[in-house]
């Protein structure tokens, strides 16, 4: 590119490099020329049709930042599924395009636009944070891009909402994970139905935490239960002692909480070091409170906690046994719930493509085929709700126990076929 020579006038004014008009023209026309060279994708070229042509899947996941391990896990699940199926979905080879959102919304939105304009992917998957899923909803909908959400659980993504605020469902958006209603409401209704009606709330103060707390409360009220108060630390709070101290100084012994990852570990450790179990307090929560990433750090400190989720690594069904065994054969670690979500997303896509004979060219038929998908997943029966595209799934009520040196979620009960109340 035309080198920028030192400009005498500019130097006098105090800045060394200054573009003259001529330099600018040379530089910009060179850039324009470069954009026309082959290699750049020609817009408008027909994407996908024929069976046998590779299906291109854009995966938007965090590989850096605080959620990097979630992204890694979901990538492992994707690659495990492909390995089990000779790198083919239906009869088509697969091209994966990964993008790292680094848990920055703007980065994720830009990557989605790149999937649409430049990579021209056939299907998009992934997305960990709910705000990112909401942020890309309109772009995906406008481009009629099939998007299978494999984590973000915000209720609005698969619901009809006024003015589509903060987000709303789309024919092209499917969710293979869960809605926050599904992991919060059923346990509320279940517990109050069993006679435990009064709860104190502790939740991370951000969209997902408040949503979970509200859905849990609605579940309690179904059977005449209710809440007596709450503490809401900010997401990523470093010190949980002040909040646990507040809990200890109020009389309601049953505490429902929504925390995950580092927050969950901090909460459970403070809970124990401040002596809440001995004082008669009992811990309940949405399942992420006691997933393996947390349990392997807190171990028996979490014993007795009752949480709800649509899966547990200990779940006793043939699909799960095979999934866990295959995963461990491939990688030196246990699968987590994020891996299951991604694995089921791949499976749903595979089943839909098989039903279409591999032909993904007609978007409406593609949507219809996905709506009709149903299969046995490691989590149990899996099907999309035709009205919302959110999964219909069993919710398991689990209790943390230490058995033979291992701290695990044991299955107490299940709430069958829970669908999101969205329309």
């Amino acid at each position, binding site marked *: 590119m035309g080198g920028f020579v030192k400009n005498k006038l500019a130097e006098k004014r105090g800045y060394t490099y200054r573009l003259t008009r001529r330099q600018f023209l040379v530089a910009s026309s060179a850039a324009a020329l470069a954009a026309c060279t082959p290699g750049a994708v020609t817009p408008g070229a027909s994407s996908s049709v024929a069976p046998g042509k590779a299906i291109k899947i854009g995966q938007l996941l965090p590989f*850096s*930042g*605080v959620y*990097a*391990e979630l992204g*890694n896990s979901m990538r492992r699940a994707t690659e495990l599924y492909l390995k089990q199926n000779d790198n083919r979905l239906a009869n088509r080879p697969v091209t994966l395009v990964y993008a790292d959102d680094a848990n920055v919304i703007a980065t994720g939105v830009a990557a989605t636009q790149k999937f649409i304009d430049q990579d021209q992917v056939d299907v998009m998957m992934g997305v960990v944070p709910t705000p990112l899923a909401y942020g890309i909803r309109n772009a995906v909908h406008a481009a009629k891009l099939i998007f299978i959400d494999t984590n973000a659980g915000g209720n609005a993504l698969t619901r009809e909402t006024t003015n589509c605020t903060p987000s709303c469902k789309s024919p092209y958006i499917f969710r293979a994970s869960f809605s926050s209603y599904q992991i919060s409401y059923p346990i509320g209704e279940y517990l109050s139905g069993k006679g435990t009606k009064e709860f104190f709330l502790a939740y991370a*103060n951000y969209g997902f935490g408040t949503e979970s707390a509200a859905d849990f409360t609605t579940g309690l009220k179904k059977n005449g239960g209710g809440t007596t108060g709450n*503490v*809401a*630390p*900010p997401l*990523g*709070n*470093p*010190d949980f*002692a*002040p*909040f646990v*101290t*507040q809990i*200890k*100084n109020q009389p309601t012994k049953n505490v429902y909480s929504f925390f995950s*990852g*580092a927050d969950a*570990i*901090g909460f459970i*450790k403070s809970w124990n*070091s*401040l*002596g809440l179990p*001995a*004082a008669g307090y009992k811990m309940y929560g949405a399942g992420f409170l006691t997933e393996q*990433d*947390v349990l392997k*750090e*807190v171990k028996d400190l979490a014993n007795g906690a009752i949480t709800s989720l649509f899966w547990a690594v200990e779940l006793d069904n043939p699909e799960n046994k095979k999934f866990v065994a295959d995963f461990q054969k491939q990688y030196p670690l246990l699968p987590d719930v994020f891996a299951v979500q991604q694995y089921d997303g791949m499976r749903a896509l595979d089943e839909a493509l098989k039903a279409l004979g591999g032909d993904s060219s007609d978007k409406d038929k593609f949507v219809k085929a996905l709506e009709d998908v149903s299969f046995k997943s490691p989590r149990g029966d899996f099907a999309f709700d035709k009205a919302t595209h959110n999964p219909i799934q069993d919710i398991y009520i689990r209790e943390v126990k230490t058995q033979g040196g291992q701290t695990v979620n044991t299955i107490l009960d299940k709430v069958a076929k829970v669908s999101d109340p969205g329309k």
Partner: protein
Amino acid sequence: MSFELAFQQALNGLSFGALLFILASGLSLVFGMMDVVNLAHGAFYMLGAYIALSVVQLTGSFWLAMLAAPLALALLGLVIEPLLLRRLRGRHLDQVLLTIGLSLVIVDLIGQLWGREVRSLSAPPGLDGSVTLIGGVYPVYRLFVIAFGVALAAAMAVIYRRTKIGMLIRAGVEDAEMLGALGINTNRLFASTFATGAALAGLAGVIAAPVFGIQPGMDTDPGLLYSLVVVVVGGLGTLSGAVAGSLLVGPADTFGKVLFQDVALAVIFAIVALVLLLKPTGLLGRIRIAR
């Protein structure tokens, strides 16, 4: 708020403040002496925590980790200062940029070496129990943290005011060039100051791990964020400033978060804004002459 609750929250606030002091003291020292805002301080803190994790896994000894992590960080500081920072002496913005770059590299290397999962460390045996105080049981480890913070501040004050090293540091803070002109090897002084700052960050990584946990992102929050807040609130680059800053920020953040939980995230910045408004140099800061 009952008396029992207020007492327990005050203890929470004090122990949080003590952790903040240990965390911020290194940043304050380096800034006071070298005029460098070391934005890699949070990454040093994080590295200390991960080294501690490995040492505890290998040897089972938390106390050994408390020696090994600061030592490792001191060595790293001894390499970084002459190799990188010294070349940019006097170019403040470039130094700040360099430390940002350094922190990115360190944090990424930690991800490569230790993985990106959430980890934790338990309090060492003997300190992992609880004692009964007013209003119920309280973890011994948090009392230990308070004691450790006080001891560290006292030790630093003695070194600062009563030893030759301390005299050199104070002189260096006043005017490093003049100190050089008087025949002191400022290169060596700066290298050892930077190494001490890094070691203090590493120490904070070990001591804070049982409370704050070990996870990706800890380099900025709580690491860099809280140490900058403490140093700015207390007064830039003085030991007494770091003490005052952590004594104010610890309890204020603790009480603020539980009393005004809807604006909990803003509490810490409200404190900074208020202090800067009333006293732009920080609580115990002095007006610095730009060099």
